[in-house]
């Protein structure tokens, strides 16, 4: 291990983290991603509680991908007690989840714009992105009940149907947003507007396997959850000397079939579409494309909602059971696993979050990158630290 290293407090990401980079003066030789956010311990916090409380708690794991955790929690609990929402509930949940995906991708765009666009373009673009963030948050308030931690995500479906005039108006607003995103994508994909860092990163490649369960929602039958392993950092890097700072990390690492896998927009579009771009900028390209695809999908779903049918199932009886949910959160595959005891309370709760899969990918992707671009690599993967600190060991790996 070379002794020249640099520690960067990562700014413009969701949460507190550091990136420790070993380099030869020019390029990165090795790197370590260190989460610094304290562990609020949601899986332990939920034990003994009513499942209704657990849903509210799960949604508060993260303030960026809140709806993703909410949907994963209700799906896992519904799976454990054997209930399913009516069609309206399923459509509305998917709409809420996709609005959250767009919201999260826009927040990430605000973070990454200064890295990827020329300085004279960046400030103006960020203001445009903030306006879009406000617009999509307003839509989420209509369909989910709030712009953050949407309370309409409930067991058995969705709390209430949107008003008819909201559906019509949302259609118009979404089409307007789609046009705006086409324009923004054209700017982001046009090399003449790129910063020097963006040009450098577009030439770097990363080759890893992908993992995704669904292009828009999530499907527990499309991956084998038993083959997901979560391990401590020291164990993941056991062959090497792990620096002392890294031992303080508050995240674990997730692997699939023992391998490093990338999850998130590029994985979804590659496995369920024909997307091909393994450059470091490819994940950003996929993220921007996903926003437009998500809007198209929401427009489709809005047309399916029947205002005369209920949005949730009327009968919910808690009983002993085990349930699992696999959901495609903005950053990738999210797994919630719940066990309910004979009194209808939470006996065990386990969560695997996408950032845990992506930490080793970020570290691998940074090797060979010029040191002045090193901090952009984790930012491209949009790590979410509040999520990643809420994970307990699933298999001993």
């Amino acid at each position, binding site marked *: 291990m070379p002794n020249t290293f640099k520690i960067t407090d990562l*700014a*413009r990401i*969701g*949460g*507190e983290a550091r990136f420790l980079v070993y380099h030869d003066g020019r390029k990165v030789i090795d790197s370590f991603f260190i989460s610094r*956010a*304290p*562990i*609020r*311990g949601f*899986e*332990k*916090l939920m034990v003994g*509680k*009513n499942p*209704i*409380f657990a849903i*509210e*708690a799960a949604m*508060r*794991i*993260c*303030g*960026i991908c*809140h709806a993703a955790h909410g949907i994963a929690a209700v799906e896992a609990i519904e799976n454990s007690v054997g209930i399913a929402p009516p069609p309206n509930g399923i459509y509305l949940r998917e709409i809420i989840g996709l609005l959250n995906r767009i919201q999260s991708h826009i*927040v990430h765009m*605000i*973070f990454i714009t*200064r890295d990827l666009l020329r300085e004279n373009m960046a400030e103006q673009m960020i*203001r445009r992105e*903030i*306006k879009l*963030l*406000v617009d999509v*948050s307003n839509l989420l308030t209509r369909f989910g*009940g*709030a*712009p*953050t*931690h949407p*309370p309409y995500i409930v067991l058995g479906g969705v*709390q209430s149907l949107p008003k008819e005039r909201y559906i019509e108006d949302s259609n118009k607003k979404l089409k307007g947003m789609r046009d705006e995103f086409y324009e923004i994508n054209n700017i982001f994909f046009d090399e003449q507007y790129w910063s020097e860092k963006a040009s450098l990163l577009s030439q770097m490649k990363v080759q890893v396997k992908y993992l995704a369960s669904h292009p828009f929602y999530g499907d527990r039958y499309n991956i084998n959850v038993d083959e997901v392993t979560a391990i*401590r*950092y020291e164990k993941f890097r056991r062959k090497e000397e792990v620096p002392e700072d890294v031992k303080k*990390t*508050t*995240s*674990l690492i997730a692997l699939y079939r023992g391998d490093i896998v990338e999850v998130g927009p590029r994985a979804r579009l590659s496995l369920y579409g024909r997307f091909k771009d393994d450059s470091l900028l490819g994940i950003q390209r996929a993220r921007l494309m996903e926003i437009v695809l998500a809007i198209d999908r929401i427009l489709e779903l809005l047309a399916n909602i029947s205002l005369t049918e209920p949005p949730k199932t009327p009968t919910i009886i808690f009983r002993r059971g085990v349930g699992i949910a696999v959901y495609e959160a903005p950053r990738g595959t999210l797994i919630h696993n719940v066990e309910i005891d004979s009194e209808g309370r939470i006996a065990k709760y386990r969560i695997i979050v996408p950032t845990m899969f992506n930490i080793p990918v970020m570290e691998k992707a940074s090797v060979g990158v010029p040191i002045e671009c090193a901090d952009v690599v984790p930012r491209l993967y949009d790590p*979410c*630290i*509040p999520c990643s600190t*809420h*994970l*307990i*060991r699933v298999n001993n790996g």
Partner: protein
Amino acid sequence: MKPEILVFDVGGCEGCPVSILREYIRLSQKANVYSKHLGNIDTSRSYDIIIVTGSVCINDEEIVNTLKELRSKAKIMIAYGSCASVGNITLFSRGGQEPRPEHRTFQPVSAVVNVDYAIPGCPPAPSGLVSLVDALITGRGPLLRVFSAISKVRRLSGFDLMDEVVLSGLCIGCGACIVSCPTNALHMIEKRPDLIVEKCIRCGTCCSRCPVFTRILVYRLNPELKLLGGGK
């Protein structure tokens, strides 16, 4: 000259700082804003206002020390959001989770340092923060006394609302608590709010919106107001 504002998260879900981002354009017209999300953070200098989000893990020495240092650099400190103001759902944390099982106790910011104003909400409507900053500059506004009083209490929840207002017969049935509850834990029955206890996450938003409860708090605590420019 515009006041200098730092937004700093000590370990929450990031929902509060992201909500502030939504009001960045309006806020930046009134103040110079610095935050990790904007990439211009500098914790070595002083600020007119430091807005803290997230609750404090008192088992993490580094975070506790950072918070104390921030307090020494702030003329005014605002706890923004329910975790920072009254602990919120993190009060239920009990530790024992890998890889840092020693992270056992989370408390509101006021448990570690003196806070001047607290805005509960999960997250609060960021427009309230813009109004508070306005009020701090002008020295006028109904929010100052309320948010100052809330900064002196460490716990607020739907249970307090029920005990102090509804069960005491003081409720006027305005419904502000029901509209404000971020988990829909309150519903109106016969013009009186009722609490669905398993949905209450101890965020205290209902109490901070209740016209009766806020008057009780202001009367009981008689808070001193710290303003920009004019000191106290």
